[in-house]
């Protein structure tokens, strides 16, 4: 799988690095199928005893088992896989609420997963310096329709039609960490008769 191909953009758009072990009393990993390899890479280079402090939450692609097996085999203190990002974020909230000071959070995979986990970490009072992110996989975006406030998941097209208010939205690079979403603004508001071609751009 390729490394992240996110181009230089505006300053509100998150930038991602590469996961690396930071000193901590507990280490929480959240990954989806595209990010699993990052967790495995970190675990394989970890010092002795590290995995005893590791908690892994994994969102597999439906029907896929090989990565579940591989992650389980890392021997973390706790490993759970859940079917959806929603479920993973809820569980992460539970885990962090019982975590101690000095915990580290590592996120790997698609932006939708990373963004929501970052927001959850912030909500749970985790300092931003204790959160690392590595982007892998699809560039699909989570988009908030600025008009009706609907959250649209896994957007791959530019523009995208809001499923709730039917407006055709330009997906901007402007990004809210709190909402874990890019901003969608009506692309033909000035002249609604204007035809706009919909193209697959966030692959």
């Amino acid at each position, binding site marked *: 799988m390729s490394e992240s191909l996110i181009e230089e953009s505006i*300053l*509100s758009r998150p930038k991602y690095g590469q996961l690396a072990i930071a000193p901590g009393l507990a280490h929480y990993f959240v990954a989806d199928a595209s990010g699993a390899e990052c967790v495995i890479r970190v675990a394989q280079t970890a010092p002795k005893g590290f995995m005893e402090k590791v908690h892994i939450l994994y969102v597999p692609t439906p029907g896929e088992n090989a990565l579940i097996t591989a992650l389980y085999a890392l021997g973390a203190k706790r490993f759970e896989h859940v079917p959806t990002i929603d479920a993973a974020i809820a569980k992460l909230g539970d885990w962090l609420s019982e975590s101690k000071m000095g915990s580290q959070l590592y996120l790997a995979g698609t932006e939708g997963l990373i963004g929501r986990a970052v927001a959850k970490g912030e909500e749970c009072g985790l300092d931003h310096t204790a959160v690392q992110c590595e982007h892998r996989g699809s560039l699909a975006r989570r988009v908030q329709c*600025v008009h009706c406030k609907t959250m649209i998941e896994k957007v791959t097209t530019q523009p995208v039609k809001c499923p709730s208010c039917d407006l055709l939205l330009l997906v901007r690079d402007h990004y*809210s960490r709190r*909402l874990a979403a890019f901003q969608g603004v009506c692309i033909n508001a000035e002249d*609604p008769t204007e035809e706009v071609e919909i193209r697959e751009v966030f692959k």
Partner: protein
Amino acid sequence: MTIHFRNETFRNDFTYANSPGNIPRFPFPFPEDVYMYSTNVEPHHATRAGSPFEHAFDVDEHYVSEMKDRALVLADDPGRCQALPHMETAAWDFVELVMVSKARDYPDLFELTIDGDRWHWINKTLQIDDTFVFGDSSTLPCHPMEYIGRQVQGDHAILDQRDGNLWMDAGIITAQADWSLDFDIGMNFFEWHAPVPLAHELGVFQRALKFLLSLPQGQPSRRLNWTLTVNPRLDTSPENYPKWGPDKLTVNPGNIGEKVHLRVELQTFWRLPRSNAILFPIRTYLMAMNEVVTQPKWGRRLHRVMRDLRPELVEYKGLSRYHPMLVDWLAQFDDGAPTSPGIFPD
């Protein structure tokens, strides 16, 4: 000084207008014949009696109607007024600053009596007479930021200061030039300005942030910002873009003088004493082109500024659809004569 408050609208039939006496006090935003970004900040000292810089919080003939428009926006979209939980102390700072300033600057309109933490506030114009315990939000009908925000012209953001940055953590924003509080709340200074072109590369925001982080108490600052708006509409939010976007197609050479408005933001910056946050009032003034050109200096200068405006700014400010038409129309007011320095009319 008696202000005659106009009864006017900023939507639907758009009856908003400036009375002839109000025109010369408009904060015309161009001190020179060309415009480019700058961190054009100066001390918010009392300047020129009668100007919008005379008092801390300018009250003008549009006060009552602007507050009615704000109430309409908030009824339709409560998300225009939001504060993160840690901003309550800053909200009380905001209450104090506005009440103390207005009671001092406009004693005919506002009265404040302070007895320990028991405060008595009278806003004669809006017929408000309330007693409350300062610092105790349960003694006000709503959040303190909303309470005072409904009584003061202009949008108000409150910026928390931490980690060497400023954070947009509260605001009452109903008259904005195309930005969303609901989306931007919680962002830092660079993040909420991220969509602005050119300025980041010019280092404008780095300098502005450095300045603001060291803003002292009791020494407020101000700057002017501008754009153009079709029709005198205060609520040009991204939320309502489908409502105001089509207005741009209604401009033609016959109506451009009444349709297109110069929209000026008088932005001021205040260090708040208890919270160490910064209050950031964004006060919008609207003036139709027909009204602007009644001042010959402004007509000449506006033509030159618009004619030479950089294409990126034409695009960013959303002027593309009628910009060439406006330059042509303004040309008739530019005889080529030199203009005097500064923003005030001759």
